[in-house]
């Protein structure tokens, strides 16, 4: 089917929607809603809304439409590219869309699926799934859902929701809007792979209910959307070829694609996601290992060997360069409680953090191959940290999060002296065969440049984050120029300028490195077909030319 029809939702009175009016009041009492983890300065907002349900959301859409104001959607505001930082108009905070609505077993796919509202966080979803206890579900659910819930509780398996962008306070809606991925995407792929249905409110206040597997693009890349009055809008999808890496740059487009994929990763350009049905995966036993190695070259050899080991598929393989380890070690000395780990070895030149299948109760596990492989790379299993209990895995997860938090803290301090300063964190990825080439390119530019930097990230997907830590505005300018060079090189290798952070407001400048002017125009055409007045998320991804108040030019 290539056509989808919108649904009407009951509309609440606009006056009944909880709101904060005026920038002064928002700054005084609700300032966090003007920012996200990017620390990008906001450009003001006239309203901050807290809708309770779709009916109130629809009332906001229609009123903002009448007033000609833009709408910026705010989820958990954990994004790194300023996607939810307002550029005028209204901010719609989705905080109250925080309920689980159902759970069911899908016979055809053999998977458990959870239906939840957009503001449910990844941490809560996984916690509730693990405990098989969803707050309030039994009082909201109908009999069929209750029966399914009972069946879920009786299922002896343990389940979880695999997308893990490290920041588990991220909301489901936000992670769908950005197609979040993170370390575990090496095994489980990005968020897109786990989304089974979406409800999206358009600027008209009408809703698209999109299950996966029902609405597909034509071979010549078109969809048709029919509103409740019967008006038909044809979308012509962009004609570019998607990169061979994990990617969040630009809209998803491919012949015959599922319509749901257009909305996943669209960064809220077309509407507001209200409900999401996700698939769960079964837990497996594993061991997390932080392997210390003598150098970054040894670490690259280790990664390539680990990926080539056919018998295993690590959930993730993460990289820390020598500067990242030093930064963490210094932080350990300064604030021992911040990182609940032993001191990082002084002689470590790099570290690889990975996990592989491991059964704690297995009396004779055979990992001779791993020992040999590690030794071939100049390292030893003795010089590693490992854990397989759930509390260990949580501890290791915290360790993984400690570095970006430390980097953000440093930049936050420096911003006090140079308010215009910000972190420069690359999000480039290249195909598998290019790992060593891109690393050598990075090093050739970084060595001797006089910039402070750390490198860490998802090396399994050839996707390390080079975090340049500018000390002043000169460093920032130098770093930006270097970033553009890195981006051009990644595209030369058929990679992407944004593998997981998205584009938002901060990485727009890199889109022309990856897409031609024609491709950018094709994306704008899709945006205007679904959001004709460019109401949603002004300034994100594309520079739309509109007369709406608050629309970034």
């Amino acid at each position, binding site marked *: 089917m290539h056509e989808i029809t919108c649904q009407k939702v009951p509309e609440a009175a606009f006056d009944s929607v909880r709101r904060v009016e005026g920038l002064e009041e928002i700054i005084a009492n609700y300032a966090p809603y003007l920012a996200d983890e990017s620390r990008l300065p906001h450009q003001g907002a006239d309203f901050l809304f807290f809708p309770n349900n779709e009916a109130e959301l629809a009332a906001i859409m229609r009123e903002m439409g009448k007033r000609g104001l833009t709408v910026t959607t705010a989820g958990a505001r954990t994004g790194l590219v300023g996607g939810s930082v307002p550029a005028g108009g209204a901010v719609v905070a989705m905080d109250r869309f925080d309920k689980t609505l159902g759970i069911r077993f899908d016979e055809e796919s053999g998977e458990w699926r959870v239906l939840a509202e957009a503001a449910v966080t990844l941490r809560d979803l996984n916690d509730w799934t693990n405990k098989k206890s969803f707050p309030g579900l039994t009082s909201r659910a109908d009999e069929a859902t209750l029966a399914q819930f009972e069946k879920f*509780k009786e299922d002896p398996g343990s389940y979880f929701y695999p997308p893990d962008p490290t920041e588990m306070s991220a909301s489901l809606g936000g992670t769908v809007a950005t197609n979040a991925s993170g370390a575990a995407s090496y095994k489980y792929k990005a968020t897109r792979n786990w989304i089974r249905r979406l409800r999206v409110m358009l600027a008209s206040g009408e809703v698209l209910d999109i299950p996966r597997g029902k609405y597909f693009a034509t071979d010549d890349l078109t969809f048709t959307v029919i509103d409740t009055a019967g008006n038909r809008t044809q979308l012509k999808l962009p004609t570019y070829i998607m990169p061979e890496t994990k990617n969040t740059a630009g809209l998803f487009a491919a012949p015959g694609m599922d319509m749901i994929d257009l909305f996943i990763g669209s960064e809220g350009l077309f509407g507001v996601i209200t409900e999401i049905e996700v698939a769960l995966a079964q837990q497996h036993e594993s061991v997390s290992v932080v*392997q210390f190695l003598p150098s970054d070259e040894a670490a690259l050899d280790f990664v390539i060997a680990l990926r080539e080991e056919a018998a295993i598929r690590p959930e993730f393989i993460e990289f820390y360069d020598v500067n990242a380890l030093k930064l963490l070690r210094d932080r350990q000395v300064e604030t021992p409680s911040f990182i609940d780990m*032993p001191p990082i070895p002084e002689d470590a030149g790099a570290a690889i953090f990975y996990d592989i299948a491991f059964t704690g109760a297995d009396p004779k596990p055979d990992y001779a191959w791993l020992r040999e492989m590690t030794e071939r790379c100049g390292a030893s299993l*003795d*010089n*590693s940290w*490992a854990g397989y209990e*759930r509390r260990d895995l949580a501890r290791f997860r915290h360790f993984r999060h400690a570095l970006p938090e430390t980097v953000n803290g440093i930049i936050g301090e420096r911003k006090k002296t140079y308010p215009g300063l910000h972190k420069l964190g690359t999000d480039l990825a290249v195909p598998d065969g290019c790992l060593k080439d891109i690393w050598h390119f990075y090093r050739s530019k970084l060595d001797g440049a006089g910039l402070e930097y750390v490198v860490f990230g998802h090396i399994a997907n050839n996707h390390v984050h080079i975090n340049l830590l500018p000390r002043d505005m000169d460093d920032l300018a130098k770093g930006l120029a270097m970033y553009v060079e890195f981006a051009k090189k990644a595209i030369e290798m058929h990679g992407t300028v944004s593998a997981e952070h998205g584009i938002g407001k901060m990485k727009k400048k890199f889109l022309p490195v990856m897409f031609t002017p024609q491709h950018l125009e094709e994306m704008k055409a899709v945006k205007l077909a679904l959001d004709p007045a460019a109401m949603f998320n002004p300034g994100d991804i594309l520079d739309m030319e509109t007369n709406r108040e608050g629309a970034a030019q």
Partner: protein
Amino acid sequence: MRVLVCVKQVPEVTNVQVNPETGTLNRDGVASILNPFCEYAMDLALDLKATNEDVEIVVLTMGPPQARMALMRCLEMGADRAILVTDRKFAGADTWATALTIAKMVEKLDGVDLVLVGKHAIDGDTAQVGPMLAEIMNIPQITYAVGLELDGRRIRVRRENEGGYETVQMRLPGLVSVNKGAATRKVCSFQEILEARGKEILTMTGDDLDLDDSELGLQGSLTQVVKVFPPTVKEPGRVLDGGNAPMAAKEVAALLHEKHFV
């Protein structure tokens, strides 16, 4: 010198909820772990071993077959060998029956110089088994230890008291119960985890002990848990919507008048 560390596997209690109707623990999705205080006891045993080459660390637990994973954690940390004492006859044992069973088990070992136990287990919180064990074995004991130092056939113990710390010493054999120690929990290397699988875990049952069945488990228990219940939950406070400050202020004022606070 042989150091025996007596340990217990417990549910990760931060995640356990009590069913208010049945008074039973809801263990769905709750992991079993080595009791943290037993882990601190292992830390002190390893400190001794690090400075005294002839120290052999034996760990012992009484519990269901799956309690071998608590022993495995000790072997990964550096214990030399382990003993699992498991039997359906032990089910329902209170602190007395547990201490008696362990004491009889210790008699089977060929001499123990020092017994280390955690201050208490985080599931039962009784802190009784260690002191009872010392009494049954008729050896001296020092409680709440945070540091140990061997001095020939004596051990110097840094212990926590209500006012701070004190150092006391006793002749061996003796028993030491261990309080919270190092801030950072030991992280094992993958090599240590793999090597632990090659170490000995000896399984023993009630038949291996010189005890009558009437002294084991529920039958041998002097006390019985009648009921488990969570503390009374206070009514939640009232939250006023601060979105409309003048309205909220009026509500607060009305409430204060209503309750005769003003």
